[in-house]
């Protein structure tokens, strides 16, 4: 039975912006420092460090090696890296902490989507024999998923627009958000299609950014933080890759991850969902089983700022922030990997 006494005690993120001229490591240096400062941990005492990033975003193999310079890797540190969103780095650190010999861990995630064209880049994430040569891009895949959702009768185009409008409105109170404003669904529905039935605003913005989290265990967390955000459950699952192999209107791996994380559909104050296309929020809400009363993406979510490889970790940060500041007592954070919600991570957070 996994431990339930590991908590988020410090975090930081860069503002989400379209094009930050700083390199990934330059984004990380102040972000990591800020998270460590918030936690009150001495950098040299951190027991384990884990980073998440994707070489292809910068276009250089071993791009992640430079990011180690933000981790304070001298004297040498116990460290690892996942080629994934920083939320999976947090998972690896959470596993490592449960060995009980260390009390603290540093996690970070970073990515810049501005250098490459995402619609050109991400087809290379697909099956290299059957899908990548077709050049299928994420917006087209998301369009197919949205179409399936409409055909199933589970949602309408207005529902998509409502998700976007609520995201932009919520983002007004998020200083790190990239897209924010008072927009209404009617105005959004008047926009032209981008990849039908999706409009440009149903897609995430192109974002550069980074985020960092400090985790601590048991008494260490209590000593350093007056109200730690305890990770009561954490799990991640993957679905088959081939879009034709699954019902695109569901996310079975998100359902499974939520159940394995100990979330059974009970009351939750806040949910931060990594729904990078507006219809995915509707799919995730159902897959995870969130009640009507739960506030979804008070930060604005990825539609308001989507620093790839940090966006999932930021969901955990945003959820933890609301526990730590006392405005919520139970929160669900979600991260995703791959296209069409293929891989999903769910983190259940609580106050004392």
């Amino acid at each position: 039975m996994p431990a339930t006494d590991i908590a988020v005690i410090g975090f930081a993120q860069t503002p989400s912006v379209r094009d930050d001229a700083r390199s990934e490591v330059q984004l990380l240096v102040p972000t990591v420092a800020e998270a460590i400062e918030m936690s009150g941990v001495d950098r040299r005492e951190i027991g384990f460090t884990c980073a998440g990033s994707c070489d292809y975003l910068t276009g250089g193999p071993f791009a992640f090696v430079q990011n180690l310079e933000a981790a304070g890797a001298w004297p040498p540190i116990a460290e690892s890296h996942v080629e994934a969103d920083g939320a999976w780095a947090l998972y690896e650190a959470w596993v490592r902490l449960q060995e009980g010999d260390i009390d603290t861990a540093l996690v970070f995630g970073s990515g810049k989507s501005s250098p490459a064209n995402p619609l050109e880049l991400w087809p290379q994430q697909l099956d290299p024999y059957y899908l990548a040569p077709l050049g299928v891009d994420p917006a087209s895949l998301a369009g197919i998923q949205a179409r399936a959702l409409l055909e199933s009768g589970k949602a309408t185009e207005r529902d998509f627009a409502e998700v976007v409008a609520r995201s932009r409105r919520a983002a007004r109170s998020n200083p790190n958000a990239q897209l924010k404003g008072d927009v209404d669904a009617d105005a959004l529905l008047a926009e032209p299609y981008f990849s039908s039935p999706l409009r440009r605003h149903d897609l995430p913005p192109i974002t550069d950014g980074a985020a960092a989290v400090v985790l601590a265990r048991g008494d260490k967390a209590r000593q350093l933080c007056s109200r730690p955000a305890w990770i009561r459950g954490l799990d991640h699952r993957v679905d088959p890759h081939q879009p034709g192999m699954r019902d695109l209107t569901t996310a079975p791996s998100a359902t499974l991850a939520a159940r394995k994380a100990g979330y059974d559909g009970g009351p939750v104050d806040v949910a931060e969902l990594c729904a990078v296309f507006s219809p995915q929020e509707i799919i995730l809400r159902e897959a995870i089983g969130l009640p009507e009363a739960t506030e979804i993406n008070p930060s604005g979510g990825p539609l308001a700022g989507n620093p790839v490889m940090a966006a999932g970790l930021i969901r955990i940060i945003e959820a933890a922030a609301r526990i730590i500041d006392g405005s919520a007592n139970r929160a669900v954070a979600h991260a995703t990997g791959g296209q069409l919600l293929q891989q999903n991570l769910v983190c259940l957070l609580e106050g004392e």
Partner: protein
Amino acid sequence: MTTTSGDKKENLVMEHLVSLTYHEKLTPTLNRFVDELLAGRIVGHRCPSCSRVYVPPKGYCPLCVVATGPENEVQCRDRGIVTGFTIITPVAYYGQKETEPFVYASVLLDDADSPLGGQDIVGIPHEQIRMGMRVRAVWKPEGERTVEGISNRGWGGLGSVVEAFEPTGEPDAAPEEYMEHIF
């Protein structure tokens, strides 16, 4: 992107060539470095915490994990010591232009603590290049200087501005002077 298939050996092999274009701005730190370089000056950042000088500047000190900026800028002399080198026999791959053995040397400038990697050494036969050899920069004439090869990833630190280093003829540096910089 082109996709072709053909019979290679007994198995079907699909050729799938992918071309991705990246438009990456130089970081503000490197932008400033390049402006100075084009004007014939090599600048670095001195860490306010440990006083180490990084060339090119990183915008932070990786040892102290503190940010550095224009206020930490220092100018370095364009001469230094070869702290390590190898002669590369190039292998062919897509985009490779080198065909003959070439020098890949690290040069520690006199005022710097971080060596410049991947430098060419000229004016001396390959077999006479040695660790500890004192060298100076060979600058391209002002009109011919370009920033080609300078990138955020640290390849070719001096781009097409300093084309190589050449021996100064001074006595070699003692190993103590460079053993901590043999990258």
